């Protein structure tokens, strides 16, 4: 019992699109506008990854089991992020704080810095 034969699209054309997107992702941030940087760097990374997974890895041509498997792993990654990020990204919480971080922030503020 084997799967259907793999359909092979025009791979060179897909590669050319990927290279074009790479050029945009490098030149976009040079404009210096934050939202353009975010879009060109990370938005395009998602598009590039999608093109590779769909056209080179043929995820759409495999049984549904595989996309579900991959989606489940990505979901766990998001769950991990949602669970841990508040502890990492905040200096204080309901019953906890990070004295060293708070102190560093205060020091940076006193020195006129903007960073954390």
């Amino acid at each position, binding site marked *: 019992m084997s799967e259907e034969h*793999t359909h092979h699209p025009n791979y060179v054309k897909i590669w050319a699109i990927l290279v074009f997107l790479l050029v945009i992702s490098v030149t976009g941030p040079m404009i210096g506008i934050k939202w353009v940087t975010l879009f060109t760097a990370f938005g395009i990374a998602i598009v590039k990854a999608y093109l590779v997974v769909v056209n080179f890895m043929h995820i759409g041509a495999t049984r549904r089991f595989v996309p579900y498997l991959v989606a489940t792993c990505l979901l766990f990654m998001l769950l991990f992020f949602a669970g841990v990020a508040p502890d990492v990204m905040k200096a204080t919480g309901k019953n906890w704080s990070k004295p060293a971080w708070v102190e560093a922030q205060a020091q940076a503020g006193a020195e006129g810095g903007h960073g954390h």
Partner: protein
Amino acid sequence: MRPVANTRSATGIPTARLAVWWLIASEIVIFGGLLASYIMHRLAHDAWSQQAAYTNTWIGAFNTLVLLSSSLSAVLGHKAADEGNGQKAAKMLYFTMLGGVTFLVVKAFEWTSEIQHGFTITSNTFWSFYYSAAGLHAMHVLAGVIVMGIVAATAKKNEELHRVELIGLYWHFVDVVWIFLFPLLYIAK
């Protein structure tokens, strides 16, 4: 007699291919955890952008081009294997290996330069993440190149051609990981 992995297919997917997808699923969790940790720390520490400014965007972009091109040769190898052309499949895998080796050589020069400028894995948390993520990825590239050499040797004899697709799947995943590492480590400054 062909190995069980080629013929048995309880899920409708040949077991060997299913095994590679399981491997990729576990790798998603490994790299996903690492990248998610990096992102949350990066968002919490604006000062990391000053450190990221020292990474060379052009070197990162060149290596991205190398990996994208090696993915093209890997998938062309898969196509050749599907057509029963083991010689061509092996040739394409050799091109892919060349891409992998080029990537690693560029990385070696890049890291040497960074270390000589005082940016080591213990310099600060940004560089710890940088070397951990890029280093783990580079080890995957190295493993891929070695396995690809073995697969190419059998493909050249027109044997076990299904393996060309399997090593290709792994290689494309390594490419996808780099597609995300590139903006995170080289562009977000």
